[in-house]
């Protein structure tokens, strides 16, 4: 595969490379070790040279169909087989199937007497025979320098080694030659002078009682390569190198949102929750509920059927499960379903890099969609802040690359500024939730607010954070003239407000009733007056009828009288009398 790639790029890079199969190393070297050339792997005792070489051969034999010869000058074939058996390399079956050949070269100074000129043709013949018998493409010489202690004449030896490396090159063997670190040189006997195509330096260093293994490519002729020191780990499945620092800032980004597990928190973030693949930092002092928030986040992810990985550096898995049950979050079913995986470890158990590698490895294996690291600050004790920050940067980068939503909790020590993370990783986080203690009226209450959340509208309100039997709830805090109130102070304030409201309502009711009764009184008055008016009208009519009657009678009497007296003077006085009568009727 790599070769094909190389051919495509032939005009730019004509150096053929043989993949080592060692996790991460092929990324740093851009494809592996130079094909057909010797590579020197050097380092102090116990740094993993033999393992490096062995893995190179085993992976070559199993994954790339390149048989290999392991010529050991230090350990017998049986010892080697046993030693690497713990890493899952079955040398016996590889040897049986002709993919690997172990050859133990034994040189005992006390048994050897030098009697004159000699050369190492025997070694050449032996190696050639081994190579030809299995059609080997890869060769390991581990550690050829022990010949210097076995054979007396260093001059001859040097000349012969030079010849050997040339010969290996001519045979087209991709070779790994190991060498012990010298005092001021890469190897004790200056092998780097002869093997100059590729030199890899392994280092096992102990800083503040914590050991870290590192790998550096000192040179790689004809090829670009990562130049940094890369941490590596020897673990159950062989070596793995961590080329994390080579990762750039080019993660893919999705707009999918996922729930935080706390409905109210979702609504604080535009009803939707976190972005998938974002990194969430959760900081707070002791006892503010960081683990609970993490647990509900994990719970929500599992509920969606996503895989989740919980890295706990403070509590054991059963303890977390028990504690979370008390707030109504049951993680056990997820554990049983295989959706959730806990990885609990004492931070001081390993060095920083080992932690990082372990996390990488676990994440690569389990492929979770969400990860919680609780608390990330516990790793602080493992090195200086710069290292820790570098490590966390790598971790976050790695998680983002894999689009894993990560919740990292950060324990802020009391007294320190709340908005400062110990390891200054806040700038790396996309969303930063702050949990805080609010001390009022002789009690402590929890509060939560979103300090930042990149790329989404979010609430700027402090919410009171309640841990209930049914999970986490967020409430509005009371913000009034007397400041922010939480807990019982909030409750009493709420009661007070409620009382005042009731009183107000009663007053209004009272006023309303007063007004109503006054209205009724007025209406009654109006009715009475109306009645009076009507009564008055009736009287008037009666009076007028009466008057009319009297007038009529009077007229009648007058007519009667006129008739009785004489009829001719009647018309004139009659009209003159009618006019004043009308006028008087109008006046009433």
């Amino acid at each position, binding site marked *: 595969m790599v070769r094909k790639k190389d051919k495509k790029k032939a005009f730019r890079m004509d150096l053929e490379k043989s993949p080592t199969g060692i996790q991460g190393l092929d990324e740093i070297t851009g494809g592996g070790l130079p094909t057909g050339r010797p590579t020197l792997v050097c380092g102090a005792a116990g740094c993993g040279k033999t393992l490096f070489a062995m893995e190179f051969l085993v992976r070559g034999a199993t994954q790339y169909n390149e048989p290999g010869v392991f010529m050991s000058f230090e350990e017998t074939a049986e010892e080697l087989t046993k030693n690497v058996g713990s890493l899952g390399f079955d040398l016996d079956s590889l040897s049986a199937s002709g993919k690997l050949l172990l050859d133990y070269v034994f040189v005992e100074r006390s048994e050897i*007497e030098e*009697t004159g000129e000699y050369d190492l043709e025997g070694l050449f013949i032996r190696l050639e025979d081994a190579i030809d018998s299995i059609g080997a493409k890869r060769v390991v010489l581990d550690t050829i320098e022990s010949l210097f202690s076995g054979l007396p004449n260093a001059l001859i030896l040097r000349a012969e080694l030079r010849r050997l490396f040339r010969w290996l090159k001519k045979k087209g063997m991709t070779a790994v030659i190991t060498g012990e670190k010298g005092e001021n040189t890469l190897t004790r006997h200056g092998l780097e002078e002869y093997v100059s195509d590729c030199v890899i330096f392994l280092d096992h260093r102990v800083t503040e009682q914590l050991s870290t293994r590192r790998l550096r490519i000192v040179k790689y002729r004809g090829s670009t390569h990562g130049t940094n020191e890369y941490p590596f780990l020897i673990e159950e499945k062989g070596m793995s190198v961590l080329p994390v620092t080579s990762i750039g800032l080019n993660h893919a980004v999705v707009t999918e949102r996922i729930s935080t597990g706390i409905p109210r928190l979702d609504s604080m973030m535009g009803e939707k929750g976190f972005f998938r693949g974002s990194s969430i930092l959760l900081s707070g002092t002791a006892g503010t509920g960081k683990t609970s928030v993490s647990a509900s986040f994990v719970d929500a992810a599992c509920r969606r059927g996503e895989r989740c990985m919980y890295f706990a550096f403070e509590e054991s898995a059963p303890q977390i499960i028990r504690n979370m049950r008390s707030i109504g979050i049951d993680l056990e079913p997820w554990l049983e379903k295989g959706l959730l995986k806990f990885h609990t470890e004492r931070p001081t158990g390993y060095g920083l890099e080992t932690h990082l590698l372990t996390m990488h490895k676990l994440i690569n294996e389990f492929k979770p969609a969400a990860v919680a690291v609780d608390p990330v600050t516990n790793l602080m004790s493992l090195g200086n802040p710069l290292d820790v920050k570098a490590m966390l940067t790598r971790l976050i980068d790695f998680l983002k690359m894999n689009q894993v939503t990560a919740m990292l909790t950060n324990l802020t020590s009391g007294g320190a500024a709340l908005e400062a993370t110990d390891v200054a990783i806040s700038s790396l986080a996309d969303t930063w939730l702050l949990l805080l203690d609010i001390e009022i009226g002789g009690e402590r209450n929890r509060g939560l607010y979103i300090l930042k959340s990149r790329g989404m509208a979010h609430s700027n309100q402090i919410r009171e954070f309640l841990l209930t039997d049914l999970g986490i709830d967020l409430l509005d805090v009371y913000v009034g003239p007397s400041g922010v109130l939480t807990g019982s102070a909030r409750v009493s304030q709420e009661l007070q407000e409620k009382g005042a409201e009731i009183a107000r309502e009663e007053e209004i009711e009272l006023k309303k009733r007063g007004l109503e009764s006054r209205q009724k009184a007025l209406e009654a008055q109006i009715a009475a007056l109306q009645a009076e008016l009507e009564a008055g009208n009736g009287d008037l009519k009666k009076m007028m009828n009466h008057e009319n009657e009297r007038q009529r009678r009077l007229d009648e009497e007058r007519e009667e009288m006129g008739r009785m007296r004489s009829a001719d003077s009647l018309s004139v006085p009659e009209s003159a009398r009618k006019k004043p009568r009308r006028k008087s009727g109008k006046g009433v």
Partner: protein
Amino acid sequence: MKNKASGKKKSAEPDASEETWILKLYIAGQTPKSSQAFDNLKKICEEHLAGKYLIEVVDLLKNPKLAKGEQILAIPTLVRQLPSPVRKLIGDLSNRERVLVGLDLQPAAKIVK
């Protein structure tokens, strides 16, 4: 001379004097160095072990597998198979003193002188 040689080892193997020395010379093709080694060896053997030795020349180019069995690296290598213990001498055997020490013939040599 033979007696002295056996006398040296009397405590270990009283019968060693009767034993035939088996010497194997490992070479890789007919090189000047290997023929020189053979000549030197023959000379010493004739001098110290006349009639009691057997030299076997092994050409590793013809039998490469043998290099592994005997742990041969350097060419030429002389292996004293018998009498035991096995001893190895590397080089063209031109350093006579060392050859005698290596083959454990030194005391005899001294007495001869």
